[in-house]
């Protein structure tokens, strides 16, 4: 995450900007919890992306027969096998890739859509603002989780569908946030200057206002990835998410639930992985927010 945050920052690099990034990085590296979060995330990424290169087992290969089921951890299967005699470690790798990918792409898309709506509302004001914000308010007053499940249950069980469902219910807070920022930013002189030289509304919104909301949006995305991972896991846990044989941490947990009596360790691994990843994103996001602007409320 640290690399991504920096990369996103470097895009708008100028001599002044660089020192800003340097300052943020300096504060970030001194934030103990943020660094703990970064370490957790790096370890998780290594586990998920490098792990399969080291431990080359097929996550879907089944050992037929009763002797393959619920094997305890051994040399052949470091984390044991599940109810179909599949290697749990390999499933953890590939399930983790899916969970992380869904978490990352839905959080980023939700932030971008929220930013788009927030910029429109904040920049144009008037009836556009009214309309968009009433809609945002309405979406915020619907209990998200039940509708998320309803939508997931009819949308089909693919990865892209789940990402879409999470995005549909995830953009509102970013829209409010960006709208608030845009309202104050558009009063600043550089925006007036841009308007004076004839910049179009689109250009002002995306070239002048948007970059100034980026720091805040990176923080909100970082924290959003954590909650998206939880959403994905919850959807899969209720059986409406990623479907077997494809693994995700959520559906591994759902599958393990029925074997709580004979193989409790199958519950421990995927849940622990979700927990550590989400904790890492929360720690890191919190530190990033403190480093960017301690007064920021997210």
């Amino acid at each position, binding site marked *: 995450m640290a690399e991504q945050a920096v990369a996103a920052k470097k895009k708008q690099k100028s001599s002044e900007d660089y020192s800003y990034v340097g300052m943020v990085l300096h504060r970030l590296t001194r934030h103990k919890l943020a660094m703990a979060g970064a370490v957790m995330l790096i370890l998780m990424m290594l586990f998920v992306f490098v792990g399969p290169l080291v431990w080359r087992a097929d996550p879907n290969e089944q050992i037929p027969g009763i002797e393959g089921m619920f094997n305890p951890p051994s040399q052949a299967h470091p984390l044991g096998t599940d109810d179909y005699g599949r290697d749990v470690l390999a499933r953890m790798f590939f399930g983790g890739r899916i969970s992380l990918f869904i978490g990352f792409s839905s959080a980023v898309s939700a932030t971008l859509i929220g930013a788009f709506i927030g910029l429109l509302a904040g920049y144009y004001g008037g009836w556009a603002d009214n309309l968009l914000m009433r809609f945002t308010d309405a979406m915020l007053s*619907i209990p998200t*989780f039940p509708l998320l499940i309803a939508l997931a249950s009819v949308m089909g069980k693919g990865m892209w569908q789940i990402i879409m469902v999470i995005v549909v219910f995830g953009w509102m807070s970013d829209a409010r946030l960006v709208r608030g920022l845009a309202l104050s930013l558009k009063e600043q002189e550089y925006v007036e200057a841009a308007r004076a030289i004839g910049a179009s509304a689109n250009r002002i919104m995306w070239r002048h206002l948007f970059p100034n909301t980026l720091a805040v949006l990176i923080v909100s995305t970082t924290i959003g990835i954590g909650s998206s991972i939880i959403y994905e896991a919850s959807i899969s*846990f*209720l059986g409406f998410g990623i479907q077997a044989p494809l693994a995700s941490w959520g559906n591994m947990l759902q599958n393990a639930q029925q074997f709580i009596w004979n193989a409790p360790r199958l519950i421990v691994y995927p*849940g622990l992985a979700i927990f550590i990843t*989400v904790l890492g994103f929360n720690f890191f996001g919190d530190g990033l927010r403190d480093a960017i602007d301690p007064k920021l409320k997210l």
Partner: protein
Amino acid sequence: MRDYVIRRVLGMIPLILIVMIVSFSIFSLVPNPFAALIENPRIKKADIERLIKAWGFDLPWYLRFFKWFSGVIKGDWGPSLLYPGSSARDVIARALPVTIRVMGIEFLLSLLIALPIGIISAVKQYSVTDYVVTVFSFLGMSMPTFWFGLMMMMLFSVFLKRPSGAPLLPAGGMMTPGLEEAPFWTRFVDQLQYLVMPVLVLAFSSVGSWTRYMRSSMLEVVRQDYIRTARAKGVPERLVINKHALRNALIPIVTLVALSVPGIVGGASITEKIFNIPGMGSLIIAAETKSDYPTAMVGLMLTSFLVIVFNLIADIVYAWVDPRIKYS
């Protein structure tokens, strides 16, 4: 202030309409429950068609919405499909007290624990206590409840046993069957055991976030000039914190408390499902995935309505506790 409240109340009407339409349109995507009946050779085709027509499933969803909505205006929320013979309102009314009991206890308990901890954590910023509290709040906030619930169940219902060999805590449900007629205290102790795990699971995560809110609100106040003035005047530290600082630090918390009240009614779907609690959360999920849209709509509208009302209450309370806020 009066004009403001009137304007806000009028503003609720379109808001509730949007919420209704959005929820209804999502539920309309759930397949028609009667179509599956065609597979059953014992049911006559004409009967199925009659059912579909009676339920309005022959109409497009927006027309069905009007059919449903005209009933709602007359106070008729329609029958439940999941529990034939009951009206959707009765089904919700049965689940409501269960959820309020679990969530209400959890809500009060987490506030009682979190607020003092948050205050201490802020007053002793950067101390060991503060770090421990911060780490634990994050642990709570990041904990997936479904996993934590299962882990607790493993601990208290699988591994830990009473001398009699029975599990230490019951794995799910609300009460031991057969104790319905028992004396009050027996029932009380019995039902309390069923509440321990769900309440702990839910409280762990909400204590985390309440502590964070309280801490940051307190930190903001403690930095202000009038606190320094109070200290400079020689007001005892105890009084500075408990009187000068706390009163102002609680203002945003009061608002947040008001905003969280609707959650008590909405229930916690996943925890309820894990611990087999027949509450609102699990009922709504079951209703919407099994095409029982009348029941799901009653549940969702109740929660959304409360969210909207408590938003207004939060704003009013905010102006009431903080005289600097004026609505015009």
